[in-house]
């Protein structure tokens, strides 16, 4: 018997028991749809985390100032200005495992252009900062080392700031006022989206740190910096860079063997990798739970096929009497099971894809339906059909034709 006739025979008997076939398929439909939705949600979460990691920049360390003891009071990290421009320069120049270092400073304030004003984050940094964060300038240029040296009043606008102050106008070359001082906009930054903490990374104005120290912050903190951002030469040497930075700073700050560090080093990639692995575990868990329902669907197919084989004992006997071989009977029932599973799988994929789209629209989650997941789900349905259909089909094919013909 060829595959076409076998398929036709199988379709006919499935159609003869419509309600039963549909209910059996429902098990597969729910299982496959659940897997597709869960994998789509998990994949979406993964993709968002990966995008966030890329938006932060790779192989980064943050050196945070703080924790000085003054008069018995110990302030927390970031509480005291213990890091200096010289520290940043030393980290960038002296350490073999460090590719670049940029001192940074943050404050906030209103930025005014014409009759528009927008209160935003002011980010002071070295020219290397953009490259370290893998942040492109979409219009204009980055500020230069000379401009940093000279504390020039130049700035770069984040997309959000550019949108609010300039709308469709090109900001490059225009003068904006930051805390009442006029600054020339030299460039506009590429869009970065949300940070892992959910902040709008484009709501920012980047300017030379020296300018920020001298022109915007007053003289109290001249020479001191906020956070020093450090980039290791490659991902394998981030740990090494961390050690070298700690060692260098302890030396420079003259902290003895038993002394407490007046700074701390955070490994950004490590934190993000942790977030990534936890979403991965979650999506595996979701997929795993959904797979259980697929298993249940498979057992449903097996159950119905066993009933069907028993019901059709006489038919099996007749087919054997007129010359069906074992494999003819086996393939007939196996094909029925696979058709049930595949039809259920296909409907489940459509339903799951629809469910994923609905989830992303209603819950606002990113969902990603990867072709691999669809192919896998379809293949898995076929496998479920073969696996759970095999036992009933084999039972049918091994029947004794005499017994089968006598069956009432």
């Amino acid at each position: 018997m060829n595959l076409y006739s076998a398929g036709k025979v199988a379709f006919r008997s499935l159609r003869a028991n419509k309600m039963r076939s549909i209910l059996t398929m429902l098990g597969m439909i729910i299982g496959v749809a659940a897997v597709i939705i869960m994998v789509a949600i998990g994949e979406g979460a993964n993709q968002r985390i990966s995008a966030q990691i890329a938006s932060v920049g790779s192989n980064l360390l943050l050196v945070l100032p703080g924790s000085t003891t003054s008069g018995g009071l110990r302030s927390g990290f970031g509480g005291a200005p213990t890091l200096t421009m010289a520290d940043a320069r030393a980290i960038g120049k002296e350490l073999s495992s460090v590719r670049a270092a940029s001192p940074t400073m943050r404050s906030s304030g209103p930025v005014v252009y014409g009759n528009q004003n927008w209160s935003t984050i002011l980010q002071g940094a070295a020219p290397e900062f953009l490259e370290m964060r893998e942040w492109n300038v979409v219009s204009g240029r980055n500020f230069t080392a000379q401009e940093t040296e000279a504390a020039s009043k130049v700035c770069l606008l984040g997309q959000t700031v550019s949108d609010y102050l300039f709308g469709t106008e090109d900001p490059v070359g225009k003068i904006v006022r930051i805390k009442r001082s006029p600054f020339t906009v030299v460039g506009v930054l590429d869009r970065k989206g949300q940070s892992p903490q959910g902040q709008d990374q484009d709501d920012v104005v980047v300017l030379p740190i020296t300018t920020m120290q001298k022109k915007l912050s007053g003289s109290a903190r001249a020479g001191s910096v906020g956070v020093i951002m450090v980039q290791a030469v490659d991902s394998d040497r981030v740990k090494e860079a961390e050690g070298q930075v700690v060692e260098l700073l302890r030396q420079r700050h003259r902290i003895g063997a038993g002394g407490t560090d007046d700074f701390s080093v955070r490994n950004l990639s490590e934190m993000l990798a942790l977030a990534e692995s936890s979403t991965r575990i979650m999506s595996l868990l979701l997929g795993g739970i959904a797979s259980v329902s697929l298993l249940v669907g498979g057992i449903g197919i097996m159950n119905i096929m066993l009933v069907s084989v028993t019901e059709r004992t006489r038919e099996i006997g007749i087919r054997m009497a007129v010359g069906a071989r074992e494999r003819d009977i086996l393939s007939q029932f196996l094909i029925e099971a696979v058709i049930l599973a595949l039809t259920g799988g296909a409907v489940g994929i459509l339903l799951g894809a629809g469910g994923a789209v609905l989830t992303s629209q209603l819950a606002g989650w990113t969902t990603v339906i990867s072709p691999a997941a669809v192919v896998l789900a379809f293949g898995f349905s076929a496998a479920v059909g073969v696996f759970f259909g095999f036992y009933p089909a084999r039972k049918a094919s091994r029947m004794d034709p005499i017994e089968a013909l006598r069956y009432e």
Partner: protein
Amino acid sequence: MGVAAIEATGLVKTYRLGDVLVEALKGVDLSIRAGEFLAVMGPSGSGKSTLMNILGCLDRPTSGTYRLDGNEVGDLSRDGRAILRRSRIGFVFQGFNLLSRLSASENVELPMIYDGTPASARRERAEGALSSVGLADRAHHLPSQLSGGQQQRVAIARAIVNTPALILADEPTGNLDSVTSEEIMGIFQRLNDERGITLVLVTHEPDIARFAKRVIRFLDGRMVEDRPVADRHLPSTPRETAG
């Protein structure tokens, strides 16, 4: 075709029913020539059904040899016997045994589905077989839309569609009234006369056995009688008169 179509010697069949061994056939020698029309008689439990199962290659004897058309059946695997059944043997049962979801012509096509006959040839041959049993106009009816006699004629069409050497009919008239029974037996006689198909017929009724040419009788697993039919019931319509 004067050669032996069936050559069985020393057929023994034992079953195990729980702890008891049941000897259904106790050494049967049987030779049937091609073109014969044989009626097998005997009470229930005499071993005639067991013999039919063995002759039909549905079962294997516990000991003894069985040659069908020169093929030693005892050596064949399950699949080998299945292939032999669909190419050389036609079955007609008391309960018709048609597939209720298939139309008459699809039921007749069934043996050809398994030997890979192309669909168009299948349909043509099925229609030919149906018209030779007088059911050409019922080809697309479901079994439930046919009378018992018509259903049995569909079964006969299915049995002859692969031009078998042997047709085994197990009480084919058991569920039919006497008029229909005679019609069915007439068809068997015609197939035997016109096509030279060897026929083995199991029956309880002496009247039905009279359509055959030779009668054997079973009792307790042994063949106790083997004689030609003296007062043979000859075909009634002139066209079908045996020559």
